């Protein structure tokens, strides 16, 4: 869950050297907390992923501008709820085929890690009701259909032999609408039907 705070520079201070300071707040707790790496910075973003890593909590962030001997008021975000607002990436897709069927194996995306050394957490551990929207395209007939899948395997049967099929998958969680991030299309051709060769 990569959570980065972005802001726009003050409009009336072009050409003036401006720095910014960020603080964050955990809803239900007592004090605003500093983010040392985002104190007196000149960039207009601050990565708060580590500070907001407990996705069951809700957070606020605020930023103020400092220039010459002045400083602005704090500008504060609304209440931010990582568990609801995280965009969930697509799963990994593995396809195998025979003459008339395609087997699809889906692997849930992993939680974003700020430190590669951190242990890997599957998004399925966070969203137990994670599901997939699988779209299938028959390239020859140009026909497309979709299926909602709960577990990680899906077998498409009664397909046409020797035909190219493409698969695209999105992850989703029942609940508030989130921007979808579909996978790359992956294509595979069903094998030739040996019995048809004998005719």
């Amino acid at each position, binding site marked *: 869950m990569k959570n980065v705070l972005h802001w726009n520079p003050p409009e009336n201070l072009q050409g003036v050297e401006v720095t910014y300071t960020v603080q964050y707040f955990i809803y239900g707790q007592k004090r605003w907390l500093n983010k040392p790496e985002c104190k007196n910075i000149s960039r207009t973003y601050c990565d708060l992923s580590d500070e907001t890593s407990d996705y069951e909590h809700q957070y606020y962030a605020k930023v103020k501008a400092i220039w010459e001997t002045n400083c602005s008021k704090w500008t504060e975000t609304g209440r931010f709820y990582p568990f609801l607002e995280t965009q969930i990436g697509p799963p990994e897709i593995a396809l195998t085929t025979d003459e008339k069927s395609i087997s699809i194996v889906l692997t849930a995306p992993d939680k974003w890690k700020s430190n590669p050394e951190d242990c890997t957490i599957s998004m399925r551990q966070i969203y137990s009701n994670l599901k997939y929207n699988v779209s299938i395209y028959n390239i020859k007939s140009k026909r497309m259909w979709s299926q909602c899948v709960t577990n990680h395997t899906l077998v498409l049967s009664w397909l046409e032999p020797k035909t190219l099929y493409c698969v695209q998958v999105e992850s989703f969680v029942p609940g*508030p609408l989130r921007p979808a991030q579909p996978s790359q299309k992956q294509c595979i051709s069903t094998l030739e039907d040996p019995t048809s060769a004998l005719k």
Partner: protein
Amino acid sequence: EFRFGPCRVEGVALPGLWEAFRTVKDAVQVQDNNTSIRLLRCEVLQNVSDSESCHLVHDLLKFYLNTVFKHYYPKIAESNTQPSFSTLANNFVFIVSKLQSSQAGEMPPDKDRARRRFLLFKRAFKQLEIQAALTKAFGEVDILLTWMGKFYQL
């Protein structure tokens, strides 16, 4: 369908509840000035067993209907958020009615644990001035729906 342990509730479209709350979320939460207090804390909603969940969701939704929505309604009756408010309230009424018919014969121990969780929430609510408490509770419907969503099956 919701499956709160032995209690089943069919016919509720959770995405519809989310959409209803989404339209009022920012307007309500910005009015909550007591950000150092969270009513639906982890102790209330974390690690709730299936058999507790039926009692707890029943108590919480009844409280939301009989206290929060009832007394908050005058504030939004004339506003454009009234339809969303009604969607939430009517769905909560429907869920509570279904839960009541499911709850017959539940084992007492789960009821007590669920009751203690609910009282944590209610005590925190009562410690606030009433208008502040109503605003905060309504602003925490996303926490409530998130927890309920864990018992929701498509």
